[in-house]
């Protein structure tokens, strides 16, 4: 699924990285606990859905090789975090849907959980 489709499905606002909407997302992961994402899972190229707007959400995405971050529940990070994400080329989106709805909508449109990827 392309990031542009994620934006459409979640009716999301692109906070940064609007030149990256063409990238392909390999799967989805949802967590407010960053260490959960750092287990032995195929995070490379995946989408992170989180309500955590701390700088560590961006750092975790960089470290785990994730493709983009969607902040749920209408959350938006502050400017310092947006600029940090730009530096590390991590596109960020914000949706007003909560975590459950966001995951459900993406899943029913074909985005798989990273735990199910080969």
């Amino acid at each position, binding site marked *: 699924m392309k990031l542009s489709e994620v934006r459409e499905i979640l009716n999301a606002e692109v906070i940064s990285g609007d030149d990256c909407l063409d990238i392909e997302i390999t799967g989805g992961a949802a967590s407010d606990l960053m260490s959960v994402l750092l287990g032995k899972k195929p995070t490379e190229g995946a989408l992170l859905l989180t309500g955590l707007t701390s*700088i560590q959400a961006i750092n975790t995405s960089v470290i*785990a090789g994730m493709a983009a971050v969607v902040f749920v529940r209408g959350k938006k990070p502050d400017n310092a975090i947006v600029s940090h994400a730009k530096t590390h080329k991590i596109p960020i989106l914000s949706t007003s849907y909560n975590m459950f709805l966001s995951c459900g909508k993406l899943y029913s449109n074909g985005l798989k959980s990273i735990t199910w990827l080969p």
Partner: protein
Amino acid sequence: MRVIREFKIKAKDFIHAGEGSMEIRKALKSLNLNAELVRRISICAYEAEMNVVIHGGDGTMSMALDDTGVVIEVTDNGSGIDDIDLALKEGYTTAGVEAQQMGFGAGMGLPNMVRNSDFFKIESEKDYGTYLIMCFKFNK
């Protein structure tokens, strides 16, 4: 084996936490290593760096490599770990609210390092600090 990156980690500096590990990731990527190996090493470095920030006094991290693999070493002069076996158990944590607000402190750090490294060893002494070494082989 030569050291290609070395940096200091400052305790309680949650804003800059992770920068060293992102540097390590960048250095590894520039060596054109296998993406999954880069991911595993970066994750271990990041978890170790976060542990020093959360629990440590100040510390240092270094990455060395040769033809066979990569070694990451981390030391800190923090309060040390009371019971290492307990600390290695998934879900056990002594991290405070500040760490949890950053998305850490779930008791997954050390188990994630064990899971993602090919060799892991930790030594700690109460009131003196902690040392850990993680190795990663190029061809398993």
